[in-house]
Protein backbone atom coordinates (compact mmCIF):
# COMPACT_ATOMS: atom_id res chain seq x y z
CA UNK A 1 0.00 0.00 0.00
CA UNK A 2 2.71 2.44 1.01
CA UNK A 3 4.82 1.43 -1.96
CA UNK A 4 1.99 2.06 -4.40
CA UNK A 5 1.31 5.41 -2.73
CA UNK A 6 5.00 6.26 -3.16
CA UNK A 7 4.79 5.26 -6.82
CA UNK A 8 1.80 7.52 -7.36
CA UNK A 9 3.57 10.34 -5.54
CA UNK A 10 6.84 9.83 -7.38
CA UNK A 11 5.12 9.66 -10.73
CA UNK A 12 2.76 12.51 -10.02
CA UNK A 13 3.96 14.67 -12.91
CA UNK A 14 3.62 11.74 -15.29
CA UNK A 15 0.00 11.24 -14.27
CA UNK A 16 -0.70 14.91 -14.93
CA UNK A 17 1.14 14.69 -18.25
CA UNK A 18 -0.77 11.64 -19.42
CA UNK A 19 -4.08 13.13 -18.26
CA UNK A 20 -3.46 16.30 -20.28
CA UNK A 21 -2.32 14.24 -23.26
CA UNK A 22 -5.46 12.12 -23.30
CA UNK A 23 -7.73 15.10 -22.56
CA UNK A 24 -6.23 17.05 -25.46
CA UNK A 25 -6.52 14.14 -27.88
CA UNK A 26 -10.09 13.49 -26.75
CA UNK A 27 -11.13 17.09 -27.43
CA UNK A 28 -9.46 16.89 -30.85
CA UNK A 29 -11.43 13.81 -31.80
CA UNK A 30 -14.75 14.47 -30.05
CA UNK A 31 -15.36 18.12 -30.95
CA UNK A 32 -16.39 19.33 -34.38
CA UNK A 33 -15.90 23.02 -33.66
CA UNK A 34 -12.68 24.14 -35.31
CA UNK A 35 -11.73 26.50 -32.45
CA UNK A 36 -12.33 23.82 -29.83
CA UNK A 37 -10.15 21.47 -31.83
CA UNK A 38 -7.33 24.00 -31.65
CA UNK A 39 -7.84 24.26 -27.88
CA UNK A 40 -7.50 20.47 -27.67
CA UNK A 41 -4.38 20.64 -29.80
CA UNK A 42 -2.92 23.25 -27.43
CA UNK A 43 -3.58 21.08 -24.38
CA UNK A 44 -2.07 18.08 -26.14
CA UNK A 45 1.08 20.01 -27.01
CA UNK A 46 1.33 21.37 -23.47
CA UNK A 47 1.44 17.83 -22.10
CA UNK A 48 4.58 17.25 -24.15
CA UNK A 49 6.16 20.38 -22.62
CA UNK A 50 5.47 18.99 -19.16
CA UNK A 51 7.00 15.65 -20.10
CA UNK A 52 10.28 17.43 -20.84
CA UNK A 53 10.26 19.99 -18.05
CA UNK A 54 9.28 17.99 -14.96
CA UNK A 55 12.17 15.48 -14.93
CA UNK A 56 14.69 18.30 -15.45
CA UNK A 57 13.92 19.76 -12.03
CA UNK A 58 15.76 18.43 -9.00
CA UNK A 59 14.30 19.16 -5.59
CA UNK A 60 16.60 21.75 -4.02
CA UNK A 61 18.46 22.25 -7.29
CA UNK A 62 19.34 25.72 -8.57
CA UNK A 63 20.05 27.20 -11.94
CA UNK A 64 23.39 25.83 -13.17
CA UNK A 65 25.53 28.84 -12.28
CA UNK A 66 28.76 28.20 -10.39
CA UNK A 67 28.58 29.90 -7.00
CA UNK A 68 29.70 29.17 -3.48
CA UNK A 69 27.26 27.07 -1.48
CA UNK A 70 25.42 25.45 -4.35
CA UNK A 71 26.22 21.96 -5.50
CA UNK A 72 22.89 20.64 -6.84
CA UNK A 73 21.79 21.96 -10.19
CA UNK A 74 18.67 21.45 -12.26
CA UNK A 75 19.07 20.51 -15.90
CA UNK A 76 18.66 23.66 -18.04
CA UNK A 77 18.52 21.90 -21.40
CA UNK A 78 14.83 20.85 -21.24
CA UNK A 79 13.87 24.47 -20.56
CA UNK A 80 15.72 25.62 -23.65
CA UNK A 81 14.16 22.90 -25.75
CA UNK A 82 10.66 23.67 -24.53
CA UNK A 83 11.14 27.38 -25.09
CA UNK A 84 11.62 26.44 -28.74
CA UNK A 85 8.66 24.07 -28.64
CA UNK A 86 6.44 26.80 -27.14
CA UNK A 87 7.38 29.12 -30.01
CA UNK A 88 6.47 26.35 -32.45
CA UNK A 89 3.19 25.81 -30.59
CA UNK A 90 2.32 29.51 -30.72
CA UNK A 91 3.07 29.62 -34.45
CA UNK A 92 0.90 26.56 -35.04
CA UNK A 93 -1.96 28.01 -33.02
CA UNK A 94 -1.71 31.37 -34.80
CA UNK A 95 -1.75 29.70 -38.21
CA UNK A 96 -4.62 27.45 -37.17
CA UNK A 97 -6.68 30.40 -35.99
CA UNK A 98 -5.88 32.32 -39.17
CA UNK A 99 -7.13 29.38 -41.20
CA UNK A 100 -10.32 29.25 -39.13
CA UNK A 101 -10.91 32.95 -39.88
CA UNK A 102 -10.52 32.25 -43.60
CA UNK A 103 -12.74 29.17 -43.38
CA UNK A 104 -15.44 31.23 -41.68
CA UNK A 105 -15.22 33.82 -44.46
CA UNK A 106 -15.54 31.14 -47.11
CA UNK A 107 -18.15 28.87 -45.47
CA UNK A 108 -19.91 31.10 -42.92
CA UNK A 109 -19.49 28.48 -40.21
CA UNK A 110 -16.79 26.80 -38.15
CA UNK A 111 -18.50 23.47 -37.45
CA UNK A 112 -16.88 20.54 -39.21
CA UNK A 113 -20.12 18.77 -40.14
CA UNK A 114 -21.68 21.96 -41.54
CA UNK A 115 -18.57 22.57 -43.65
CA UNK A 116 -18.71 19.03 -45.04
CA UNK A 117 -22.43 19.42 -45.73
CA UNK A 118 -21.79 22.72 -47.49
CA UNK A 119 -19.15 21.11 -49.71
CA UNK A 120 -21.41 18.14 -50.41
CA UNK A 121 -24.22 20.54 -51.40
CA UNK A 122 -22.06 22.33 -54.00
CA UNK A 123 -21.75 18.88 -55.51
CA UNK A 124 -19.68 17.86 -58.54
CA UNK A 125 -15.98 18.32 -58.76
CA UNK A 126 -16.17 19.79 -62.23
CA UNK A 127 -17.66 23.07 -61.05
CA UNK A 128 -15.72 26.25 -61.66
CA UNK A 129 -13.84 27.26 -58.50
CA UNK A 130 -15.99 29.40 -56.21
CA UNK A 131 -14.74 32.93 -55.83
CA UNK A 132 -13.66 33.98 -52.41
Amino acid at each position, binding site marked *: MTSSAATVGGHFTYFVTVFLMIAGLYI*LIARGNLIKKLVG*LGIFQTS*AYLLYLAPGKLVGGTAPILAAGFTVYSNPL*PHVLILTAIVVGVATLA*LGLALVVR*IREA*YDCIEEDEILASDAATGG*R*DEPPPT*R
Partner: protein
Amino acid sequence: MSLAAHLPALQVVVPLLAAPLTVLLRRRDLAFGVALVASWAALAAAVALWLQVESGGTVSYPIGNWPPPWGIEYRVDRLTAFVLVLVAGVAALVLPYSRASIEAEVPPQQHYLFYTMFLLCLAGLLGITITGDAFNVFVFLEISSLATYVLIALGRDRRALVASYQYLIMGTIGATFFVIGVGLLYLMTGTLNLADMGRRLADVHGTRPVLAALAFVTVGISLKLALFPLHQWLPDAYTHAPSAVSAFLAATATKVAVYVLVRFYFSVFGHSQVFGRLPTQEVMLLLALAGMFVASAIAILQTDLKRLFAYSSVAQIGYIVLGLSFDTTSGLTATIVHLFNHGITKGAVFLLLGGVALVMGGTSLARIQGLGRRMPLTSFGIVLCGLSLIGVPGTAGFVGKWYLILAALEQGQWWLVFMIVASSLLAVAYVWRFVEAAYFREPRQDTAGGPPVPWSMVVPAALLVVATVYFGIDSSLTAGAAARAAADLLGGLR
Protein backbone atom coordinates in the same frame (compact mmCIF):
# COMPACT_ATOMS: atom_id res chain seq x y z
CA MET B 1 38.02 26.95 -43.51
CA SER B 2 37.08 26.91 -47.13
CA LEU B 3 33.58 27.15 -48.53
CA ALA B 4 33.45 23.41 -49.17
CA ALA B 5 33.95 22.70 -45.46
CA HIS B 6 30.83 24.71 -44.60
CA LEU B 7 28.59 23.03 -47.19
CA PRO B 8 26.43 21.21 -44.61
CA ALA B 9 25.51 24.48 -42.91
CA LEU B 10 25.06 26.36 -46.18
CA GLN B 11 22.73 23.63 -47.41
CA VAL B 12 20.12 24.77 -44.89
CA VAL B 13 21.14 28.35 -44.18
CA VAL B 14 20.93 29.59 -47.78
CA PRO B 15 17.21 28.83 -48.32
CA LEU B 16 16.44 29.74 -44.69
CA LEU B 17 17.95 33.22 -45.07
CA ALA B 18 16.62 33.72 -48.59
CA ALA B 19 13.07 33.28 -47.24
CA PRO B 20 12.92 36.52 -45.16
CA LEU B 21 14.78 38.27 -47.98
CA THR B 22 11.89 37.57 -50.34
CA VAL B 23 9.50 39.15 -47.83
CA LEU B 24 11.65 42.27 -47.58
CA LEU B 25 11.94 42.60 -51.36
CA ARG B 26 8.16 42.28 -51.86
CA ARG B 27 8.45 42.60 -55.67
CA ARG B 28 7.47 39.20 -57.02
CA ASP B 29 10.07 39.20 -59.80
CA LEU B 30 12.87 39.95 -57.35
CA ALA B 31 11.47 37.39 -54.91
CA PHE B 32 11.39 34.83 -57.71
CA GLY B 33 15.01 35.61 -58.61
CA VAL B 34 16.17 35.21 -55.01
CA ALA B 35 14.23 31.97 -54.59
CA LEU B 36 15.59 30.58 -57.86
CA VAL B 37 19.21 31.37 -56.91
CA ALA B 38 18.71 29.92 -53.42
CA SER B 39 17.13 26.68 -54.63
CA TRP B 40 19.80 26.14 -57.28
CA ALA B 41 22.50 26.90 -54.71
CA ALA B 42 20.88 24.28 -52.46
CA LEU B 43 20.99 21.77 -55.32
CA ALA B 44 24.66 22.57 -55.96
CA ALA B 45 25.44 22.11 -52.27
CA ALA B 46 23.52 18.80 -52.18
CA VAL B 47 25.35 17.44 -55.22
CA ALA B 48 28.72 18.59 -53.84
CA LEU B 49 27.96 16.92 -50.51
CA TRP B 50 26.91 13.75 -52.30
CA LEU B 51 30.21 13.61 -54.21
CA GLN B 52 32.09 14.34 -50.97
CA VAL B 53 30.32 11.52 -49.12
CA GLU B 54 30.66 8.99 -51.94
CA SER B 55 34.41 9.55 -52.08
CA GLY B 56 35.34 10.41 -48.51
CA GLY B 57 32.74 8.88 -46.22
CA THR B 58 30.45 10.47 -43.63
CA VAL B 59 30.74 14.23 -43.17
CA SER B 60 30.21 15.61 -39.66
CA TYR B 61 29.77 19.35 -39.17
CA PRO B 62 29.63 20.82 -35.64
CA ILE B 63 27.40 23.91 -35.65
CA GLY B 64 29.27 26.86 -34.13
CA ASN B 65 32.26 24.57 -33.52
CA TRP B 66 30.64 23.03 -30.43
CA PRO B 67 31.74 19.40 -30.62
CA PRO B 68 28.99 16.77 -30.64
CA PRO B 69 27.28 15.39 -28.60
CA TRP B 70 27.10 18.72 -26.68
CA GLY B 71 26.63 20.92 -29.70
CA ILE B 72 24.29 20.35 -32.62
CA GLU B 73 25.83 18.22 -35.31
CA TYR B 74 24.98 18.14 -39.00
CA ARG B 75 25.77 14.70 -40.25
CA VAL B 76 25.80 13.63 -43.88
CA ASP B 77 26.10 9.96 -44.69
CA ARG B 78 25.20 8.18 -47.92
CA LEU B 79 21.46 8.04 -47.25
CA THR B 80 21.36 11.69 -46.16
CA ALA B 81 23.16 12.83 -49.29
CA PHE B 82 20.85 10.74 -51.47
CA VAL B 83 17.71 12.29 -49.97
CA LEU B 84 19.23 15.78 -50.05
CA VAL B 85 19.83 15.46 -53.79
CA LEU B 86 16.22 14.33 -54.32
CA VAL B 87 14.71 17.18 -52.29
CA ALA B 88 16.97 19.92 -53.63
CA GLY B 89 16.71 18.57 -57.18
CA VAL B 90 12.92 18.56 -57.18
CA ALA B 91 12.86 22.04 -55.62
CA ALA B 92 15.25 23.36 -58.27
CA LEU B 93 12.90 22.06 -60.98
CA VAL B 94 9.58 23.05 -59.37
CA LEU B 95 10.62 26.61 -58.63
CA PRO B 96 11.05 27.80 -62.25
CA TYR B 97 7.82 25.92 -63.03
CA SER B 98 5.91 27.65 -60.24
CA ARG B 99 6.32 31.14 -61.69
CA ALA B 100 3.93 30.56 -64.57
CA SER B 101 1.85 28.03 -62.68
CA ILE B 102 0.91 30.28 -59.74
CA GLU B 103 0.18 33.09 -62.19
CA ALA B 104 -3.09 31.31 -62.92
CA GLU B 105 -3.80 29.94 -59.46
CA VAL B 106 -2.67 32.44 -56.81
CA PRO B 107 -3.61 36.14 -56.51
CA PRO B 108 -0.65 38.29 -57.72
CA GLN B 109 -0.22 40.17 -54.43
CA GLN B 110 0.53 36.87 -52.69
CA HIS B 111 3.20 35.67 -55.14
CA TYR B 112 6.20 36.86 -53.15
CA LEU B 113 4.80 35.13 -50.08
CA PHE B 114 4.49 31.93 -52.08
CA TYR B 115 8.25 32.01 -52.68
CA THR B 116 8.87 32.74 -48.99
CA MET B 117 6.86 29.72 -47.94
CA PHE B 118 8.39 27.55 -50.63
CA LEU B 119 11.91 28.42 -49.42
CA LEU B 120 10.96 27.82 -45.77
CA CYS B 121 9.47 24.47 -46.68
CA LEU B 122 12.62 23.58 -48.62
CA ALA B 123 14.87 24.70 -45.75
CA GLY B 124 12.80 22.64 -43.31
CA LEU B 125 12.94 19.49 -45.44
CA LEU B 126 16.68 19.83 -46.02
CA GLY B 127 17.17 20.52 -42.30
CA ILE B 128 15.25 17.40 -41.24
CA THR B 129 17.44 15.37 -43.53
CA ILE B 130 20.83 16.78 -42.68
CA THR B 131 20.63 17.31 -38.93
CA GLY B 132 22.10 14.81 -36.50
CA ASP B 133 20.14 16.12 -33.52
CA ALA B 134 16.79 14.66 -32.48
CA PHE B 135 15.20 17.89 -31.29
CA ASN B 136 16.47 19.70 -34.36
CA VAL B 137 14.53 17.18 -36.44
CA PHE B 138 11.35 18.28 -34.63
CA VAL B 139 12.05 21.98 -35.15
CA PHE B 140 12.77 21.56 -38.86
CA LEU B 141 9.76 19.26 -39.16
CA GLU B 142 7.57 22.06 -37.85
CA ILE B 143 9.25 24.69 -40.04
CA SER B 144 8.54 22.67 -43.15
CA SER B 145 5.05 21.68 -41.96
CA LEU B 146 3.92 25.21 -41.10
CA ALA B 147 5.13 26.42 -44.49
CA THR B 148 3.32 23.48 -46.11
CA TYR B 149 0.00 24.35 -44.44
CA VAL B 150 0.24 27.89 -45.83
CA LEU B 151 1.18 26.64 -49.30
CA ILE B 152 -1.81 24.29 -49.38
CA ALA B 153 -4.17 27.04 -48.18
CA LEU B 154 -3.10 29.12 -51.21
CA GLY B 155 -5.16 26.81 -53.44
CA ARG B 156 -7.92 28.68 -55.26
CA ASP B 157 -10.72 26.39 -54.14
CA ARG B 158 -12.18 27.09 -50.69
CA ARG B 159 -11.76 23.41 -49.89
CA ALA B 160 -8.02 24.10 -49.84
CA LEU B 161 -8.56 25.93 -46.55
CA VAL B 162 -10.27 22.95 -44.94
CA ALA B 163 -7.63 20.58 -46.35
CA SER B 164 -4.92 22.80 -44.90
CA TYR B 165 -6.66 22.95 -41.51
CA GLN B 166 -7.05 19.18 -41.39
CA TYR B 167 -3.42 18.70 -42.33
CA LEU B 168 -2.46 21.20 -39.61
CA ILE B 169 -4.32 19.19 -36.99
CA MET B 170 -3.01 15.81 -38.17
CA GLY B 171 0.49 17.09 -38.79
CA THR B 172 0.74 18.71 -35.36
CA ILE B 173 -0.51 15.55 -33.66
CA GLY B 174 2.16 13.65 -35.57
CA ALA B 175 4.91 16.11 -34.67
CA THR B 176 3.84 16.11 -31.00
CA PHE B 177 3.85 12.31 -30.90
CA PHE B 178 7.33 12.47 -32.36
CA VAL B 179 8.52 15.00 -29.79
CA ILE B 180 7.05 12.89 -26.96
CA GLY B 181 9.05 9.94 -28.27
CA VAL B 182 12.20 12.05 -28.45
CA GLY B 183 11.52 13.30 -24.90
CA LEU B 184 11.34 9.73 -23.57
CA LEU B 185 14.57 8.88 -25.37
CA TYR B 186 16.22 11.97 -23.89
CA LEU B 187 15.07 10.93 -20.40
CA MET B 188 16.63 7.51 -20.86
CA THR B 189 19.88 8.49 -22.52
CA GLY B 190 20.55 12.12 -21.56
CA THR B 191 21.57 13.02 -25.08
CA LEU B 192 19.90 14.41 -28.17
CA ASN B 193 22.61 13.61 -30.71
CA LEU B 194 21.25 10.79 -32.85
CA ALA B 195 24.50 8.84 -33.17
CA ASP B 196 25.29 9.24 -29.47
CA MET B 197 21.72 8.28 -28.59
CA GLY B 198 22.10 5.12 -30.68
CA ARG B 199 25.22 4.14 -28.71
CA ARG B 200 23.73 4.88 -25.28
CA LEU B 201 20.45 3.10 -26.01
CA ALA B 202 22.39 -0.17 -25.91
CA ASP B 203 22.58 0.21 -22.10
CA VAL B 204 18.83 0.58 -21.68
CA HIS B 205 17.88 -1.90 -24.37
CA GLY B 206 14.27 -3.06 -24.15
CA THR B 207 13.19 -0.95 -21.17
CA ARG B 208 9.60 0.21 -21.18
CA PRO B 209 10.21 3.95 -21.81
CA VAL B 210 12.37 3.08 -24.81
CA LEU B 211 9.67 0.83 -26.25
CA ALA B 212 7.10 3.57 -25.60
CA ALA B 213 9.40 6.02 -27.38
CA LEU B 214 9.60 3.61 -30.31
CA ALA B 215 5.81 3.47 -30.48
CA PHE B 216 5.41 7.26 -30.25
CA VAL B 217 8.06 7.94 -32.89
CA THR B 218 6.57 5.31 -35.21
CA VAL B 219 3.02 6.64 -34.97
CA GLY B 220 4.12 10.30 -35.18
CA ILE B 221 6.25 9.81 -38.27
CA SER B 222 3.70 7.46 -39.84
CA LEU B 223 1.21 10.33 -39.70
CA LYS B 224 3.71 12.49 -41.53
CA LEU B 225 4.50 9.90 -44.19
CA ALA B 226 0.80 9.07 -44.69
CA LEU B 227 1.07 5.39 -43.87
CA PHE B 228 -2.33 3.74 -44.26
CA PRO B 229 -4.64 4.31 -42.26
CA LEU B 230 -3.08 7.63 -41.15
CA HIS B 231 -3.24 9.04 -44.67
CA GLN B 232 -6.57 10.91 -44.43
CA TRP B 233 -4.99 14.36 -44.76
CA LEU B 234 -3.04 13.57 -47.92
CA PRO B 235 -5.62 13.27 -50.73
CA ASP B 236 -7.40 16.52 -49.80
CA ALA B 237 -4.13 18.38 -49.36
CA TYR B 238 -2.70 17.25 -52.71
CA THR B 239 -5.97 17.79 -54.56
CA HIS B 240 -6.67 21.36 -53.50
CA ALA B 241 -3.14 22.76 -53.24
CA PRO B 242 -1.77 24.80 -56.17
CA SER B 243 -0.24 22.51 -58.84
CA ALA B 244 3.37 23.46 -58.10
CA VAL B 245 2.83 22.78 -54.40
CA SER B 246 1.23 19.38 -55.07
CA ALA B 247 4.21 18.43 -57.22
CA PHE B 248 6.77 19.55 -54.66
CA LEU B 249 5.02 17.90 -51.71
CA ALA B 250 4.26 14.66 -53.52
CA ALA B 251 7.90 14.33 -54.53
CA THR B 252 9.55 15.32 -51.25
CA ALA B 253 7.52 15.73 -48.05
CA THR B 254 6.44 12.13 -47.45
CA LYS B 255 9.83 10.90 -48.67
CA VAL B 256 11.67 12.95 -46.05
CA ALA B 257 9.34 11.49 -43.40
CA VAL B 258 10.29 8.00 -44.60
CA TYR B 259 13.91 9.04 -44.24
CA VAL B 260 13.31 10.07 -40.61
CA LEU B 261 11.67 6.72 -39.89
CA VAL B 262 14.58 4.83 -41.46
CA ARG B 263 17.05 6.97 -39.54
CA PHE B 264 15.35 6.32 -36.20
CA TYR B 265 14.82 2.62 -36.86
CA PHE B 266 18.27 1.74 -38.08
CA SER B 267 20.61 4.39 -36.64
CA VAL B 268 19.00 5.25 -33.30
CA PHE B 269 16.99 2.29 -32.02
CA GLY B 270 18.88 -0.30 -34.05
CA HIS B 271 17.00 -2.93 -36.00
CA SER B 272 17.33 -5.64 -33.33
CA GLN B 273 15.46 -3.37 -30.90
CA VAL B 274 12.82 -2.26 -33.41
CA PHE B 275 12.00 -5.67 -34.82
CA GLY B 276 13.02 -7.87 -31.90
CA ARG B 277 11.01 -6.50 -28.98
CA LEU B 278 7.74 -5.45 -30.55
CA PRO B 279 5.77 -6.91 -33.48
CA THR B 280 6.86 -3.92 -35.58
CA GLN B 281 7.57 -6.10 -38.57
CA GLU B 282 4.10 -7.66 -38.65
CA VAL B 283 2.34 -4.32 -38.06
CA MET B 284 4.30 -2.46 -40.73
CA LEU B 285 3.92 -5.32 -43.20
CA LEU B 286 0.17 -5.45 -42.66
CA LEU B 287 -0.33 -1.68 -42.90
CA ALA B 288 1.87 -1.51 -45.99
CA LEU B 289 -0.17 -4.24 -47.70
CA ALA B 290 -3.44 -2.62 -46.65
CA GLY B 291 -2.21 0.69 -48.08
CA MET B 292 -1.14 -0.93 -51.35
CA PHE B 293 -4.55 -2.54 -51.90
CA VAL B 294 -7.08 -0.21 -50.29
CA ALA B 295 -5.54 3.05 -51.51
CA SER B 296 -5.11 1.66 -55.04
CA ALA B 297 -8.73 0.50 -55.03
CA ILE B 298 -9.92 3.92 -53.84
CA ALA B 299 -7.78 5.55 -56.53
CA ILE B 300 -9.69 3.61 -59.21
CA LEU B 301 -12.97 5.16 -58.00
CA GLN B 302 -11.81 8.77 -58.16
CA THR B 303 -13.17 11.24 -60.69
CA ASP B 304 -10.42 13.82 -60.34
CA LEU B 305 -6.91 13.11 -61.60
CA LYS B 306 -5.11 14.97 -58.82
CA ARG B 307 -7.05 13.00 -56.22
CA LEU B 308 -6.51 9.77 -58.13
CA PHE B 309 -2.76 10.22 -58.12
CA ALA B 310 -2.83 11.36 -54.48
CA TYR B 311 -4.37 8.02 -53.50
CA SER B 312 -1.80 6.34 -55.70
CA SER B 313 0.83 8.09 -53.54
CA VAL B 314 -0.61 6.45 -50.43
CA ALA B 315 -0.38 3.08 -52.18
CA GLN B 316 3.22 3.71 -53.24
CA ILE B 317 4.12 4.67 -49.66
CA GLY B 318 2.91 1.13 -48.90
CA TYR B 319 5.64 -0.34 -51.13
CA ILE B 320 8.24 1.91 -49.53
CA VAL B 321 7.26 0.85 -46.00
CA LEU B 322 6.99 -2.79 -47.08
CA GLY B 323 10.69 -2.77 -48.03
CA LEU B 324 11.57 -1.28 -44.67
CA SER B 325 9.66 -3.97 -42.78
CA PHE B 326 11.82 -6.79 -44.21
CA ASP B 327 14.78 -5.66 -42.09
CA THR B 328 17.23 -6.89 -44.74
CA THR B 329 19.73 -5.09 -46.95
CA SER B 330 17.78 -5.80 -50.11
CA GLY B 331 14.51 -4.70 -48.49
CA LEU B 332 16.07 -1.44 -47.36
CA THR B 333 17.61 -0.96 -50.80
CA ALA B 334 14.11 -1.30 -52.25
CA THR B 335 12.81 1.31 -49.81
CA ILE B 336 15.55 3.83 -50.60
CA VAL B 337 15.49 3.37 -54.37
CA HIS B 338 11.69 3.44 -54.53
CA LEU B 339 11.66 6.54 -52.36
CA PHE B 340 13.75 8.30 -54.99
CA ASN B 341 12.05 6.82 -58.05
CA HIS B 342 8.54 7.38 -56.77
CA GLY B 343 9.53 10.93 -55.82
CA ILE B 344 10.54 11.84 -59.37
CA THR B 345 7.63 9.95 -60.93
CA LYS B 346 4.98 11.61 -58.77
CA GLY B 347 6.70 14.97 -59.14
CA ALA B 348 6.49 14.58 -62.92
CA VAL B 349 2.80 13.56 -62.80
CA PHE B 350 1.75 16.56 -60.74
CA LEU B 351 3.86 18.97 -62.83
CA LEU B 352 2.13 17.65 -65.97
CA LEU B 353 -1.28 17.91 -64.30
CA GLY B 354 -0.50 21.55 -63.54
CA GLY B 355 -0.20 22.13 -67.29
CA VAL B 356 -3.44 20.22 -67.87
CA ALA B 357 -5.25 22.34 -65.27
CA LEU B 358 -3.98 25.46 -66.99
CA VAL B 359 -5.16 24.49 -70.48
CA MET B 360 -8.32 22.48 -69.76
CA GLY B 361 -9.42 24.46 -66.71
CA GLY B 362 -9.41 21.50 -64.34
CA THR B 363 -8.21 17.97 -63.82
CA SER B 364 -11.45 16.01 -63.46
CA LEU B 365 -11.78 13.00 -65.73
CA ALA B 366 -14.91 14.50 -67.30
CA ARG B 367 -13.03 17.65 -68.22
CA ILE B 368 -9.88 16.11 -69.65
CA GLN B 369 -11.73 13.94 -72.19
CA GLY B 370 -9.78 13.83 -75.41
CA LEU B 371 -6.62 15.12 -73.77
CA GLY B 372 -4.62 12.82 -76.05
CA ARG B 373 -5.64 14.98 -79.01
CA ARG B 374 -5.50 18.35 -77.25
CA MET B 375 -2.15 17.85 -75.48
CA PRO B 376 -0.48 14.81 -77.06
CA LEU B 377 2.93 15.22 -75.40
CA THR B 378 1.52 15.88 -71.93
CA SER B 379 -0.76 12.86 -72.21
CA PHE B 380 2.14 10.73 -73.34
CA GLY B 381 4.17 11.95 -70.36
CA ILE B 382 1.39 11.09 -67.91
CA VAL B 383 1.08 7.63 -69.47
CA LEU B 384 4.85 7.09 -69.10
CA CYS B 385 4.63 8.07 -65.43
CA GLY B 386 1.59 5.85 -65.07
CA LEU B 387 3.63 2.94 -66.41
CA SER B 388 6.25 3.78 -63.81
CA LEU B 389 3.59 3.72 -61.07
CA ILE B 390 2.49 0.29 -62.31
CA GLY B 391 6.12 -0.84 -62.38
CA VAL B 392 6.57 -1.70 -66.05
CA PRO B 393 10.20 -2.63 -66.91
CA GLY B 394 12.04 0.30 -68.47
CA THR B 395 10.58 2.83 -66.06
CA ALA B 396 11.85 3.95 -62.67
CA GLY B 397 8.97 2.36 -60.78
CA PHE B 398 10.09 -1.09 -61.92
CA VAL B 399 13.46 -0.87 -60.16
CA GLY B 400 11.99 -0.42 -56.70
CA LYS B 401 9.46 -3.21 -57.17
CA TRP B 402 12.14 -5.50 -58.56
CA TYR B 403 14.25 -5.07 -55.41
CA LEU B 404 11.12 -5.50 -53.32
CA ILE B 405 10.36 -8.81 -55.01
CA LEU B 406 14.00 -9.90 -54.59
CA ALA B 407 13.77 -9.08 -50.87
CA ALA B 408 10.56 -11.09 -50.56
CA LEU B 409 12.08 -14.07 -52.40
CA GLU B 410 15.19 -13.87 -50.21
CA GLN B 411 12.94 -14.58 -47.23
CA GLY B 412 11.01 -17.24 -49.13
CA GLN B 413 7.78 -15.28 -48.89
CA TRP B 414 6.20 -16.20 -52.19
CA TRP B 415 2.81 -14.90 -51.18
CA LEU B 416 4.26 -11.40 -50.87
CA VAL B 417 5.51 -11.53 -54.45
CA PHE B 418 1.99 -12.42 -55.47
CA MET B 419 0.62 -9.50 -53.41
CA ILE B 420 3.06 -7.03 -54.97
CA VAL B 421 2.10 -8.12 -58.49
CA ALA B 422 -1.62 -8.18 -57.66
CA SER B 423 -1.56 -4.64 -56.25
CA SER B 424 0.29 -3.51 -59.37
CA LEU B 425 -2.69 -4.76 -61.38
CA LEU B 426 -4.84 -2.32 -59.41
CA ALA B 427 -2.41 0.39 -60.52
CA VAL B 428 -3.06 -0.70 -64.12
CA ALA B 429 -6.76 -0.11 -63.47
CA TYR B 430 -6.37 3.45 -62.19
CA VAL B 431 -3.89 4.42 -64.88
CA TRP B 432 -6.35 2.97 -67.41
CA ARG B 433 -9.00 5.40 -66.15
CA PHE B 434 -6.77 8.20 -67.40
CA VAL B 435 -5.96 6.46 -70.68
CA GLU B 436 -9.63 5.82 -71.37
CA ALA B 437 -10.64 9.43 -70.78
CA ALA B 438 -7.67 10.90 -72.63
CA TYR B 439 -7.55 8.67 -75.70
CA PHE B 440 -10.96 7.07 -76.20
CA ARG B 441 -13.27 10.02 -75.69
CA GLU B 442 -14.08 12.99 -77.87
CA PRO B 443 -12.74 16.32 -76.57
CA ARG B 444 -15.36 18.51 -74.96
CA GLN B 445 -16.19 21.75 -76.79
CA ASP B 446 -15.96 23.97 -73.70
CA THR B 447 -12.34 23.01 -73.07
CA ALA B 448 -11.11 24.22 -76.47
CA GLY B 449 -8.96 27.26 -76.85
CA GLY B 450 -7.04 27.18 -73.59
CA PRO B 451 -3.72 29.02 -73.48
CA PRO B 452 -0.61 27.04 -74.52
CA VAL B 453 1.56 25.73 -71.68
CA PRO B 454 4.56 28.08 -71.26
CA TRP B 455 8.08 26.72 -71.73
CA SER B 456 8.99 27.34 -68.10
CA MET B 457 6.39 24.72 -67.19
CA VAL B 458 7.11 22.28 -70.00
CA VAL B 459 10.86 21.96 -69.45
CA PRO B 460 10.86 20.98 -65.73
CA ALA B 461 8.05 18.49 -66.29
CA ALA B 462 9.80 17.02 -69.32
CA LEU B 463 13.08 16.72 -67.41
CA LEU B 464 11.38 14.73 -64.64
CA VAL B 465 9.62 12.46 -67.17
CA VAL B 466 12.94 11.82 -68.90
CA ALA B 467 14.50 11.09 -65.49
CA THR B 468 11.68 8.64 -64.77
CA VAL B 469 12.53 6.70 -67.92
CA TYR B 470 16.30 7.13 -67.61
CA PHE B 471 16.49 5.77 -64.06
CA GLY B 472 14.35 2.85 -65.20
CA ILE B 473 16.76 1.88 -67.96
CA ASP B 474 20.04 2.67 -66.21
CA SER B 475 19.50 1.99 -62.54
CA SER B 476 23.19 1.69 -61.62
CA LEU B 477 23.38 5.23 -60.24
CA THR B 478 20.27 5.15 -58.03
CA ALA B 479 20.21 1.47 -57.10
CA GLY B 480 23.96 1.49 -56.48
CA ALA B 481 23.75 4.47 -54.16
CA ALA B 482 20.70 2.98 -52.42
CA ALA B 483 22.41 -0.39 -51.93
CA ARG B 484 25.51 1.24 -50.41
CA ALA B 485 23.34 3.41 -48.15
CA ALA B 486 21.36 0.35 -47.02
CA ALA B 487 24.55 -1.60 -46.34
CA ASP B 488 25.85 1.32 -44.26
CA LEU B 489 22.65 1.46 -42.23
CA LEU B 490 22.52 -2.25 -41.45
CA GLY B 491 26.25 -2.87 -41.20
CA GLY B 492 27.42 0.19 -39.34
CA LEU B 493 25.39 -0.08 -36.18
CA ARG B 494 24.46 -3.10 -34.15
